[in-house]
C-alpha cells in the first residue's frame, strides 16, 4: 500500500506540472486585461498608461519563470478585478461549490445505486424500462433547462423552495436536484450495466446454487462486486460534477467557484482563472486518488 501510494503521489507531480503549464499558456495567449479594466470611454492613452504600469511586456519565458516561482509559494498573482491575491479569493469560494457538489453527489448516489441495482435485477421489467428510459431522458436534457424548469415549478408555482441563493438546507434542494439528477442519470446507466455484468458471473450462480435468497445474492455477492467499478465511476464523475456546478451555480446564483470563474473569464481576470482551474484540477486529482485507494481496499485481488 505504501509503495502504491508513493507511486501514485509521484504521478501527480508531472500532472500538476502539465496543468500549470497549460494554464499559463492559456493566460499568455489571452492577452492583457487592461482594456477590460477601463471603462468604455477610456482613451487609448489611458490604456497604454495602465499597461505600462502593470508591466505586461515581459517575454514568455520570463513570465513563465515568474509564474512558476509564484506557484511554488502558492501565489497565483493578484486578481485585477478584486485587487487581492487570487488564491484566497478562490479558496473562500471553494466551500460553497464543494457543498453543492457533495449534495449533488449524494442525490446522485441515493438515486442511482438503488435504481441501477433494481433495474439490473429486474431487467426488462416495466420498472427497468422506466428507470432506463428516465435516465436517458434526463441525460438528454440540458442542465440549465432543467434548473429553470425546477425553479418555475417548485419555487414560482408551488412556492416550496427558495428560488436562488445559498443559505439553509432548503436553498440547497433545487440546485442539488438539478445537478444531482443529471449525474444520477449517467450513474444509473453505468451501475445497471456493471451490475448486469456481475449478475452474469459464475460466482453469482454459485451463490444461487447454495440456496441463498436472491436479495442476499444481489446485495451481498453482486453489489459488493459492482461497487468496485461504481467507485471509479463516481470518482470520474467528479470532473463532470464540478463542471456542472458552473451551470447550476449560474442558474441558482450559487456563490461558488463556478460563478467566480465565469466572472473572471468574462473580465479576463486571469489570476483568478489560473487559481481556480488549478484548484479544481487538484481537487479532481485528489478525488481520483481517493477512488484508487478505495478501489484497492475494496478489491483483495489487487496486491499493494
Amino acid at each position: 500500500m505504501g509503495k502504491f501510494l508513493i507511486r501514485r503521489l509521484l504521478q501527480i507531480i508531472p500532472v500538476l506540472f502539465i496543468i500549470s503549464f497549460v494554464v499559463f499558456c492559456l493566460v499568455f495567449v489571452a492577452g492583457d486585461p487592461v482594456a477590460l479594466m477601463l471603462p468604455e470611454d477610456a482613451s487609448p492613452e489611458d490604456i497604454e498608461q495602465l499597461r505600462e504600469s502593470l508591466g505586461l511586456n515581459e517575454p514568455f519565458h520570463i513570465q513563465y519563470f515568474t509564474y512558476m516561482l509564484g506557484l511554488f509559494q502558492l501565489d497565483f498573482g493578484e486578481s485585477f478585478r478584486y485587487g487581492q491575491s487570487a488564491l484566497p479569493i478562490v479558496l473562500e469560494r471553494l466551500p460553497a461549490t464543494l457543498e453543492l457538489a457533495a449534495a449533488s453527489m449524494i442525490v446522485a448516489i441515493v438515486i442511482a445505486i438503488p435504481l441501477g441495482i433494481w433495474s439490473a435485477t429486474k431487467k426488462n421489467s416495466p420498472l427497468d424500462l422506466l428507470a432506463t428510459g428516465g435516465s436517458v431522458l434526463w441525460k438528454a436534457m440540458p442542465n440549465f433547462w432543467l434548473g429553470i424548469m425546477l425553479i418555475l415549478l417548485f419555487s414560482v408555482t408551488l412556492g416550496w423552495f427558495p428560488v436562488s441563493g445559498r443559505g439553509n438546507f432548503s436553498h440547497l434542494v433545487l440546485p442539488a436536484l438539478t445537478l444531482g439528477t443529471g449525474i444520477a442519470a449517467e450513474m444509473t446507466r453505468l451501475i445497471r450495466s456493471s451490475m448486469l455484468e456481475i449478475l452474469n458471473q459464475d460466482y453469482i450462480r454459485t451463490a444461487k446454487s447454495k440456496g441463498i435468497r436472491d436479495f442476499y445474492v444481489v446485495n451481498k455477492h453482486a453489489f459488493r462486486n459492482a461497487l468496485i467499478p461504481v467507485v471509479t465511476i463516481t470518482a470520474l464523475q467528479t470532473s463532470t460534477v464540478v463542471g456542472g456546478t458552473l451551470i447550476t451555480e449560474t442558474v441558482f446564483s450559487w456563490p461558488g467557484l463556478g460563478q467566480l470563474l465565469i466572472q473572471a473569464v468574462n473580465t479576463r481576470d486571469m489570476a483568478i482563472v489560473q487559481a481556480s482551474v488549478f484548484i479544481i484540477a487538484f481537487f479532481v486529482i485528489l478525488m481520483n486518488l481517493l477512488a484508487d485507494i478505495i478501489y484497492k481496499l475494496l478489491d483483495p485481488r489487487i496486491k499493494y
Partner: protein
Amino acid sequence: MSVNSQLQNQSQTITSSTKQTPSFFVRWLRLLLKSKTGTIGLIIVLAVTLVAIFAKSLAPHDPNLINPAMMLKPPVWADGGSSAHILGTDNLGRDILSRIIYGSQISLAVGISAVALAGAIGVFVGLIAGYYGGLIDNILMRLVDSFLAIPTILFALVILSIFGPSVTTLIVVLGITNWVQYARLVRGEVLSIKEREFVKAAKSIGVRNNKIIMKHLLPNVISPFIVISTLSVATTIILEASLSFLGLGIQPPTISWGGILSDGRDYIATSWWLAAFPGMAITITVLAIIFLGDWLRDVLDPRANN
C-alpha cells in the same frame, strides 16, 4: 462462463459463419429491427440528418428573416397561432420551425466534427501509448490525466472566451478536450491485445510496428470506438447548448439549437414555445443518438450483451 454467455457465443458463431454471405447488411438490419429503441433511434437520427442536409428546401421561411409584425406568435394550435408559422415565432418574428431546421445543421456538424477530431487524436495517442509503452506511455498518460482533471466545460469556457466562440473554435475545443476518453479506451485495448499470440507471432517474424498497429490493433478497437463516439455526439450537442447558456456557444446569425434554446430562456415563462421546441429538438435527438449508441454497444460489444 455462464449459460447465457455461452448462448451468446453460439449466436456469434452464427454471425461469423454467415458473414461471408451477401446478406450481411440484411442481418444487421434484422438485428436492428429486433430492438425497438435501436430502430427508433436510427430513424430519428436519419431523419434529423436528412433535415440538416435538406434544410434549405424544408424550411418554410428564411430562419433569420425578421418580421416585427409577427413577433412572439404562438404555435399554430394555440390561440393566436398562424398557419404560416407552425411552431410560432420568436421575439423578432422569426419562424421557429425554420430556425430549428437550420439549427440541426450546426448542432450535428459540431457534434460529429468534434467527435471525429477527438477520436482521431485519441486513437492515435492511445495506439502509441499502448503499443510502445514505457516512457512514451508514461508521458502520454500523464497528459491524459491532466486533461481528465480539468472539466471539459471549464476548459471550453476559458478557451472560447479567449479565442472567441466561432464554430471552428468550438469544434477544436471540444475535440481537444474529449480525446482523452478515446486515448484511454484504445490504450487499454491495445495493452490487452498486445499480449495475445497473434501479435507476438507477428512481432517475432519481424512485421513492422506500424503494420502491426494498423493490421492487428486498429480493427480490434473499432467497435468500442464506434459506441463511445456515438454517445459522445450526444454529449457534445448538450455541451454546445450549455456553452450557449454561458454566452459562449455559437453566435448568431449562425443558428444552433443550443443558441435558440438559450436565447429563448428569458421567455420560458411568457412565451414557452421559444425555448420548448429547441429544447425538445435537442432532447429528442440526443435521446435517439443514445438509443442508437446503446443498441450499437449491444451488438458490437459481446460483453455488454445479455
